[in-house]
């Protein structure tokens, strides 16, 4: 009889300590050894993880009220501007914001990680002053413990797949995909392949609004679909997208995070970003689910895209699988080209293991999504139009 398990049954097993939990790398050999049927009844949860630069990240902070109070309209944190176009003492610090004095060498990501590390942050805020908020200026220091809420809210993390980058031009390119040497001298790629969360659940059967996740060392949630979310893309026979597809908006308590799983990043001549560690536990509901979870690098494909073309749509020079990318060398147009990951597999593995420990030891249960994401077949583009030309049907 075919094995079927519900979220509730799996959570019961987690609570009574009988759940079998393995990582998305470990499951591959288990399926080879036991076969799909036996592995489906044996394994309950598979942990997936990624640790990659994720620019679309940031944190909401509430500083608490000063006396006399101020309605902050301009906010600097260690000389990095935070968006203060919210209520009086709320602000959002974006990871890629850069500082006035150190430019890209110290940005929003550094402020966020310094807060997580418990460091003192210099807060400077100004205001025109109002009858109810008379103060016009404040210059003080905060820590994560001195303020009220501090939570990460990242609008686009955890890309399902991502194009690898190459440079066919004659000059070195400095990009968010790292340094691309001229004349196709290197290929950079950025997912953890067979360990990556959304590559293991290609149709997001178990991941949606409310999914409990590991976010930078703290429990977090999937809050919404990520920005630039698209599902109707080219897929392999195994259902795995061969290009960028789904993304996630995630939320979690900054105060509980650990710098072991989140770090600022500075990309030369590009800007500030942030390495974010995310782990997602996926339940083995049935054989189909396990088949997805047993996906291997050799069966996950991505495009090699030419970053020397400065247009929205960059040409693909061909498809490559993650086993080839991981081998360190790819042959393209008769040329052997070295490959470099930008996503840390060693960190992703540490996250998958830590999440496994959470489930086995701390009884971290799984949350069935409250709502699955709708299919999206097209991304809108931004066009330069006159006011009268906009199509508002």
């Amino acid at each position, binding site marked *: 009889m075919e094995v079927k398990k519900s979220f509730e049954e799996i959570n019961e097993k987690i609570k009574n300590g009988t759940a079998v939990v393995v990582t998305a790398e470990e499951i591959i050999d288990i399926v080879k050894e036991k076969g799909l049927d036996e592995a489906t009844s044996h394994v309950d949860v598979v942990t997936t993880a990624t*640790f990659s*630069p994720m620019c679309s990240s940031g944190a909401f902070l509430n500083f608490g009220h000063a006396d006399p109070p101020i309605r902050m309209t301009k906010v600097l944190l260690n000389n990095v501007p935070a968006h203060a176009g919210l209520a009086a003492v709320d602000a959002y610090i974006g990871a890629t914001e850069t500082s006035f004095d150190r430019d890209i*060498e110290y940005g929003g990501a550094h402020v966020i990680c310094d807060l997580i590390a418990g460091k003192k942050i210099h807060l400077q805020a100004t205001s025109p002053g109002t009858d109810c908020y008379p103060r016009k200026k404040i210059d003080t220091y905060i820590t994560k413990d001195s303020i009220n809420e501090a939570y990460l809210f990242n609008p686009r993390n955890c890309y399902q797949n991502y194009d690898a980058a190459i440079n066919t031009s004659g000059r070195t390119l400095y990009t968010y995909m*790292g*340094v*691309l*040497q001229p004349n196709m001298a*290197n290929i*950079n790629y950025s997912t953890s392949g067979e360990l990556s969360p959304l590559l293991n659940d290609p149709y997001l059967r178990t991941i949606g609004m409310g999914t409990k996740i590991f976010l930078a060392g703290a429990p977090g949630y999937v809050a919404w679909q990520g920005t630039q979310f698209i599902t109707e893309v080219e897929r392999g026979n195994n259902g795995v997208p061969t290009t960028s597809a789904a993304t996630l908006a995630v939320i979690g308590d900054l105060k509980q995070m650990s710098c072991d799983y989140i*770090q*600022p*990043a*500075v*990309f*030369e001549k590009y800007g500030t*970003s942030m*390495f974010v560690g995310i782990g997602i536990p996926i339940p083995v509901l049935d054989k189909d689910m396990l088949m997805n979870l047993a996906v291997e690098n050799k069966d996950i494909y991505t495009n090699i895209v030419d970053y020397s073309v400065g247009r929205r749509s960059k040409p693909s020079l061909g498809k490559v699988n993650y086993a080839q990318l*991981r081998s*360190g060398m790819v042959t393209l147009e008769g040329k052997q080209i*070295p490959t*470099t*990951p*930008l*996503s*840390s*597999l*060693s*960190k992703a*593995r540490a996250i998958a293991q830590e999440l496994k420990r959470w489930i086995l030891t701390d009884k971290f249960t799984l949350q069935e999504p409250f709502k699955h994401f709708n299919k999206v077949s097209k991304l809108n583009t931004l066009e330069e139009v006159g006011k009268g030309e906009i199509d508002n049907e």
Partner: protein
Amino acid sequence: MSKKAYKQRIYIEAEKCVECGACTAVCGAKALRLDKTTWKLIYNVQKCQGCMLCVSACPSRAIKSDIEDLPSAVAAAL
């Protein structure tokens, strides 16, 4: 056969390194590489040309070109 002494040109702060591999993309001398099993960074001082391209390519700013730049605890441990 006489042994050749190699001068260490760069220093990697293990605490800051996230093992992303970005530095290996600019190291033409192949002195920096990720181990294919552990996926941790390996620095081969014998191959290093001292070009310093890795220093600015490292997003974690974990590579230092001068021992003077290192925190004293790290420098003392070398």
